[in-house]
């Protein structure tokens, strides 16, 4: 029900903005690959290295090697004045990164908060697989999709717990209580 309601809104937006809406279908293969890579990374960074490794065991992986050994470093995190103004430096975070190349040539990159080099390497491997025509489907099905479902479930649970602390105001009529 909710889904169909969303579709109606989407449809009405498309009808109202036919010119710009038709542009959406005009994505280049590069854009859609970038979107898919980013979507996979956005899930993998939230998972534990052991969970990614466990899911990857469900695939028969192609030969691959480390293009860049995992390396730890810092990224300066930025905020914005007032939340929406000029950027400022808030403080740093530890970040681990790695790069992996498949025997077929695809190069994947892994970046993640924290100092878990193995996790960065596994993300890089997945990123390389996402770019491979042969493995893109498998890595999405066996690794990314289940981890995404787990992530969304965790977020939904937290949102539900948070929602229970939302204040319902009511007005007391004078003379009551």
């Amino acid at each position: 029900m909710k889904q169909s309601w969303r579709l109606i809104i989407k449809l009405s937006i498309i009808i109202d903005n036919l010119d710009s809406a038709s542009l959406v279908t005009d994505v280049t293969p590069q854009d859609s690959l970038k979107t898919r890579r980013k979507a996979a990374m956005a899930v993998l960074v939230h998972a534990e290295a052991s969970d990614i490794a466990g899911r990857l065991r469900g695939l028969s992986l192609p030969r691959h090697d480390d293009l860049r050994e995992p390396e730890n470093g810092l990224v300066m995190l930025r905020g914005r004045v007032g939340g929406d103004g000029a950027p400022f430096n808030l403080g740093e975070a530890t970040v681990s990164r790695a790069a992996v190349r498949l025997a077929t040539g695809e190069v994947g990159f892994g970046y993640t908060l924290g100092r878990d080099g193995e996790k960065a390497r596994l993300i890089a491997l997945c990123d390389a697989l996402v770019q491979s025509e042969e493995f893109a489907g498998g890595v999405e099905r066996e690794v990314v999709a289940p981890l995404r479902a787990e992530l969304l479930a965790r977020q939904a649970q937290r949102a539900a717990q948070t929602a229970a602390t939302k204040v319902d105001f009511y007005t007391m009529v004078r003379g009551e209580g």
Partner: protein
Amino acid sequence: MYVAVKGGERAIENAHRLLAHARRGDQGVPEISLDQISEQLGLAVDRVMSEGSLYDRELAALAIKQARGDLIEAIFLVRAFRATLPRFGASEPVDTGAMRVQRRVSSTFKDIPGGQILGPTFDYTHRLLDPGLAEGFVPDEPATAEASSVATPRVTDILGRDGLIEPSPQVEDGVPIGDLTREPLNFPADRDLRLQNLARGDEGFLLAIGYSTQRGYGRNHPFAGEIRFGEVEVEFFAEDVGFAVPLGAIELTECQMVNQFKGSATEAPCFTRGYGLAFGQSERKTMSMALVDRALRARELGEEVLAPAQDEEFVMSHSDNVQATGFVEHLKLPHYVDFQSELGLLRKLRQEFAEANDVEPMKEAAE
């Protein structure tokens, strides 16, 4: 004359062994784990990450353990650690408007889109010590309710739509952003540097300075427009990848203070604002930061600079607890030679005093 003094190596070594023993405490009591610190002393971890200026829960927990719970010592350890790692670059600015909110309250509007969400808070607790927590406490499962799909826009954005509040200052892309970890502090300092300084500033110092504005030393009539806490996603433009890669999520607290108006012959009066942002759930810190940020805008807003809170050199030079503790605590290190020269001068002055007043100089026990 400089006299090099050596010695004490064995005493120092043994003192550190004794420290390790004292840190561990009674070995009949189980050792505390980093997970226990991170999970059960989470707000201490948040403070060490904020003021250590390094987001890494595990490292902050280790620092707290190593420092025996002395948070300023832990912050010092974290700052020293960060100096050992290379910097890959800077993140894209985080979008606090897209925060997965776990707490969000406004003291200015009762009915805000998305609602008032209390989250895990000490507010409205009775502040009575709970003996039930002493041992074997198992909390009830949290209550749940259907999460609303309504967005939670920043309260200041809502006020901003009507022009009732000043807009946030903007800069053009490519303008360099001040970084006090790279360049020494110069005054006057722009707001980017001030906010970076306050974000890593000592909570107690900022609390006291913020409090002083409320008591009248640079009063600016604040309302807590909004306080929000939750997770935001971080992205980093990685040159090798060619696009902004997701790095994961961090927890942040943001405070928007709404302060009394400014206006001029050419500009309609509107509310002004102070801003606070810090790692983790750091509500007292961000509220204090927002009060001080607003006070430090005195010059920009044409207010007379009279109070310590409005003096950026005073505030920014004293907010950092690692610098402050370094200078205060260095007093306990050997100053034998410095003190000898002072002692020599004092003796000379006393001799002169005795001669001028024709009294017998007193014999000192130390002589």
